[in-house]
């Protein structure tokens, strides 16, 4: 993949993405991958700080692990949904857990997409693009 920046560096690509995962190495790898695609990134390593960082940074999209210390991914989604100003942020679940059962629970819990690790980078980037579009359009209008 020689050309990482397929969308041509439009405003869409300056979106801020929050990575929530307790594995520091994976956070670092995802950060590098997303930055190479012109996204801004912020990150959190547990459920508790995920909400705090989201409040402070107002990301345009969240990539969320399910197995997390201090409040798992489902808990994070629930708290995002309950919050007045965070409930509109699209959430992509990226987990090592079994899709059977967890996929449906995640989508019911408010996620807009579900991927099992290891994920194909192109599929993940495609889902990010698809989910950012409505979120950014909405942000632009309000």
């Amino acid at each position, binding site marked *: 993949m020689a050309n990482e920046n397929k969308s041509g560096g439009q405003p869409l690509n300056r979106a801020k993405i929050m990575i929530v995962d307790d594995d520091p190495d994976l956070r670092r790898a995802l950060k590098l991958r997303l930055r190479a695609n012109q996204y801004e990134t912020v990150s959190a390593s547990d459920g508790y700080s995920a909400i705090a960082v989201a409040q402070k940074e107002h990301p345009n999209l969240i990539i969320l692990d399910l197995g997390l210390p201090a409040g798992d991914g489902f808990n994070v989604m629930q708290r995002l949904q309950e919050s007045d100003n965070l409930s*509109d942020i699209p959430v992509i679940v990226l987990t090592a857990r079994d899709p059977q059962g967890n996929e449906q629970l995640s989508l019911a819990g408010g996620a807009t997409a579900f991927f099992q690790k290891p994920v194909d980078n192109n599929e993940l980037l495609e889902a990010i693009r698809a989910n950012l579009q409505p979120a950014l359009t909405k942000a632009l209008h309000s």
Partner: protein
Amino acid sequence: MDQQTTNVLLIEDNPGDADLVRLRLVEARFPVNVNCVNRLSDGLASLANETPSVVLLDLYLPDSRGAETFRRVLENAPHVPVVVLSGQEDEALAIKAVHQGVQDYLIKGDLSSKQLERAIRYAVERQALLRSLEMARSQQLEFKNRFLSHVSHELRTPLTCIHQFVTLMADGLAGPVSPEQHDHLKTILKSVNQLHAMIRDLLEATRAECGKLRIEPRCVVAGDLVQQAVALLRPLAQQKQVGLEMGLDTRLPLVLADPDRILEVLVNLIDNGIKFTPADGCVTVKACLVDADPDHVYFSVADTGRGINPEALPLIFERLFQDPDTVDGNRSGLGLGLYIAKEIVARHGGRMWVASQPGQGSSFSFTLPLYSLAKLLFPVITHEGRLREALALVRLDLTPLSSLARGNWRETCTQCLDLLGRCVYVDKDLVLPAMATGGPQETFFVVASTEMQRVPIMTTRIRQQIGALPQLKTSGTLRVTARALPLPSMPEAKTLEQQVELVADRVTEAVLLDLGCKHSFTGKGAL
């Protein structure tokens, strides 16, 4: 056994024999409570309400005779010990009874009280032992399932990390990479993908063992699946210089199948074929109808490879089996692929088998059930032995207006289909299984027993309800259209079955016409 009262259900129609059994039980001074019924249906009704300690069963009853009698009791009360009390000696029947799960087979004529008491006690004990064995086995399976699910989760985490950093390097995001380094990184990535596939197979095999393989059957064009699988493996075949041929029957009907899972099966078989076929050999994938079995479509994947040893042939679908003669540097799996493939086909109601000639090649075949609209329609469109008069066909399209993530889109469609199932009258209307289409659009058809004039009301209701799905509200990226399709008037037919067949044909024609008739079908209720 402690001194608790033993509750006996005696199913016996001869009053003399019933009294004899009671007498023997009293003689045995055995704390017992006998409930006697004289028909099998009464016995089964009693078993549905309460669980006795033991069933004493005569085989010749007014409403059932012979082996059928114990088969039905065992089927209805699999956990209750059954002792057959027969009027005559019949060794073959006795063995059959024991094989099917009857605890004992006694002859009424030479029954002493002591014998009967012992038979009952031992039957109860054996049944309890059997049950605890069964429970231990299912607990063990469950544990294995949980264990593997846990292990696979733990293995995926570091694997994901390797995958991410290797792709970062291979994509040149961590500095320039020489062609040789790039080559090495590709090799690492290939191994990572193999490990990933093994973890997935381990979980799938355990699921198959526990009967938890997930299948979502839909209406699928059999030939499309073959074409997709062949297209996916064309590059590999070219790379190995193996020919990849396709032979599709021109009159292939629709099958009822989970397209993702069957594609997986076909890919697995074709991939194996290519792997074990030398350069200049050929792999042929076929789908056809067989006159002797009109209810199934037959698929086969044949290669001109080295074939399978006759000794290995019966073991080829076993878990973890790998033919020692074919194990070489190319091996890349755990030996679970064929086992999983066979289980997937079995879950569809089909079967899979193999034929092979060493030195000449192997041929793997499997069947999938035909999708019969008439069978699905029958209970819905008939009422009190007659065809319902008003029938309409409604088409519903869901179109995503922006690209939704795949998982999300499928989930949305599943929810729509569930909702659709509740919008219509369950006993009067039928939501046809979704058509598996290549594009992002999902199309559902509903056969409704309603007047054409009332269809607009129905479609409005469906549109409103589906439009109210929470997922669609937030994303607003979906278009729902529903409209009625006219069904041509029904010609006269003799029997109700023929009438239903005709309706099925009409519906099929209307649907195909509306879809632009891109597939060819056999006429008989093929949709």
